[in-house]
């Protein structure tokens, strides 16, 4: 009850005219940033920190938080309309969202994404109020072995994302892991796979890789054709509401997405891309028609979009209660808090209770603003389709260049983006799925660190992963996922072989 008392006080502050205005501006700017390919929430939030310098801390953080979750939704728009994810968490939305748009159902895809995002975000914020401290304490029990095992669950789900070939998905996952190892070894400081190239010492950053694989790769693929008619759905958005039967399916997907996104948001080190990828994989696993995923099924949009917004709100829990940023964007928010003289951590609730509860209350308000802004504006956003693709693709390329460069002011990153663009094009032509590589590129450093810390902790004893109960449970889940995926893949391979033998 004490939490609700604080929350009510927070609402009083958050609903002042000034803070409402900044939350609205933040939502609009965030959505715009999300719409522009190459400018994800991390880059967008970082770009806009300077405009909050002159605001008082509560308004500044309310606005930055609104930019953050606005961008999470905005990323969906380009994923659905032009198959170019605005940020990593929207990568998986392309799979079914773009297909829906091609069938003339862009409105329904964007509509269910907005509704799912609203529900996911609101429920996660409620969870933040109710269970922030106990759940954060539970996540604190995770040592390196538990964390490694949890990441194994995430990576084994890469197999669930496999397209036609299990080995192609696996090898892409491993390639992503190898890319993630480039740079200075975090434990011993030895350079790995850097070949004497100084910028590689900082590692391969995922923003240029994502921009290359998805932005440049997609544009190159479209350039094969005459660059005409690649816009999905021809710009028509008839209705932003799903069909009646789709509501029933979407409700359960949204609920699962909310739970998963909320849970992952509590675990420091994960990110919204993991939430959306895992959510998509789970939907595919539980679906009665997994083969239809990737052809424009609504749960393929509803679940990941809900999960990434639930994650976005829940990820603030470790930041506020433990001072641990869970993702790059949250780390940027943490920087903004520190710049405003506020130190994230358990003392924040004690020393700056008004501030922290006002920000939490603003999350509710922000979710409502986002829903009000986005549902009626779905058609307006879809007008992007009317811009000739030849012109839009050039503008997308310019934004990709800005996005790759601006995160670290590095021209080298533009080169990384170009190389990844050519690779992304080749992978698409050869039917190698690029999503597993992106996922493992993000998870790789965390996975290696927790593996090495675990083995170091046990002084070389590998049984540490199975002697700790939480870790054992995660590993058992991993084994189940792997076994089930292998089982599903095996008969197909055998069938194919016997069919060809008959021919």
């Amino acid at each position, binding site marked *: 009850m004490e939490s609700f008392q604080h929350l009510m006080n927070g609402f009083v502050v958050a609903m002042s005219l000034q803070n409402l205005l900044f939350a609205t501006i933040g939502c609009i700017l965030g959505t715009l940033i999300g719409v522009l390919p190459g400018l994800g929430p991390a880059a967008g939030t970082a770009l806009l920190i300077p405009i909050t310098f002159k605001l008082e801390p509560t308004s500044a953080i309310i606005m930055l938080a609104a930019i953050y979750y606005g961008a999470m939704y905005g990323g969906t728009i380009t994923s659905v309309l032009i198959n170019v994810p605005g940020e990593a968490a929207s990568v998986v939305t392309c799979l079914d969202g773009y297909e829906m748009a091609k069938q003339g159902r862009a409105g329904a895809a964007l509509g269910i994404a907005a509704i799912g995002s609203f529900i996911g975000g609101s429920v996660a914020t409620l969870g933040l109020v109710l269970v922030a401290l106990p759940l954060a304490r539970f996540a604190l029990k995770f040592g390196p072995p538990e964390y490694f095992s949890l990441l194994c669950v995430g990576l084994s789900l890469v197999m669930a994302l496999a397209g036609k070939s299990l080995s192609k998905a*696996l090898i892409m996952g491993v390639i992503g892991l190898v890319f993630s190892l480039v740079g200075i*070894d975090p434990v011993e400081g030895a350079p790995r796979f850097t070949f004497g190239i100084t910028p590689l010492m900082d590692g391969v950053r995922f923003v240029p890789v994502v921009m290359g694989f998805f932005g440049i790769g997609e544009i190159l693929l479209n*350039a094969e054709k005459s660059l005409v008619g690649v816009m999905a759905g021809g710009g028509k958005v008839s209705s932003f509401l799903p069909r009646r039967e789709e509501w029933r399916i979407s409700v359960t997907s949204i609920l699962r997405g909310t739970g998963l996104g909320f849970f992952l948001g509590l675990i420091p080190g994960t990110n919204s891309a993991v939430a959306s990828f895992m959510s998509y994989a789970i939907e595919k696993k539980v679906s009665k028609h997994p083969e239809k995923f990737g052809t424009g099924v609504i749960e393929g949009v509803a679940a990941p979009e809900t999960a990434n917004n639930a994650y976005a709100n829940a990820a603030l829990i470790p930041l506020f209660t433990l001072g641990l940023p869970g993702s790059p964007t949250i780390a940027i928010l943490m920087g903004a808090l520190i710049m405003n003289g506020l130190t994230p951590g358990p003392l924040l609730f004690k020393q700056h209770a008004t501030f922290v509860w006002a920000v939490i209350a603003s999350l509710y308000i922000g979710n409502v603003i986002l829903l009000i802004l986005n549902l009626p504006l779905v058609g307006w956003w879809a007008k992007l389709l009317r811009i000739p693709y030849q012109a839009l693709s050039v*503008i997308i390329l310019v934004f990709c*260049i800005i996005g790759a460069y*601006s995160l670290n002011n590095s*021209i080298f990153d533009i080169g990384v983006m170009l190389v990844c*663009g050519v690779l992304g094009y080749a992978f698409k032509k050869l039917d190698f799925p690029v999503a597993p590589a992106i996922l493992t590129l993000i998870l790789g450093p965390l996975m290696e660190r927790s593996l*090495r810390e675990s083995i170091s902790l046990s002084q070389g004893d590998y049984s540490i992963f199975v002697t700790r109960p939480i870790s054992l449970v995660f590993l058992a889940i991993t084994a189940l996922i792997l076994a089930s995926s292998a089982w599903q893949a095996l008969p197909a391979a055998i069938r194919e072989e016997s069919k060809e033998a008959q021919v």
Partner: protein
Amino acid sequence: MRRVNRIVWGILLAFGAFVVYESLQLSYYGTDFGPGPGFFSFWLGVLVIALSLAELTWTLRQPADPLPKGFLPDRQGTARILSIIGALAASLLLMAPLGFSLTMLGFCVFLLRSVGRFSWWAVLPIAGLSSFGLAYVFRMLYVLLPTGMLGI
């Protein structure tokens, strides 16, 4: 397609071998019983080799088949792809000496004319807004973009 698959999995096999070789140059085990920098990458390399070998063996058993229709782009498609890659590569080289605005102006003019086939009336405003216009907006937002020798 069988030949293409063999080449691709052959390249991946070589990549796996390279990862293993590079990992062996690093310490496999560190000083405090913990794995060294080469530990994780070594096993990843081994996994790439194992998967590539399995797929190579599989493709060797497959009958020869033609390339799927549309696998290779036509001459115009190839020209467009090479134009985009060339423009990106050129902008990469010119960004430091010329700065963002001038490089992007040339980049946009070239692509809009060669790939988009737009008229000069359309090219100039789009290119201007996408280069100098965006540079202005981002500088207003305190985003540092390369300025080059001319300071623009």
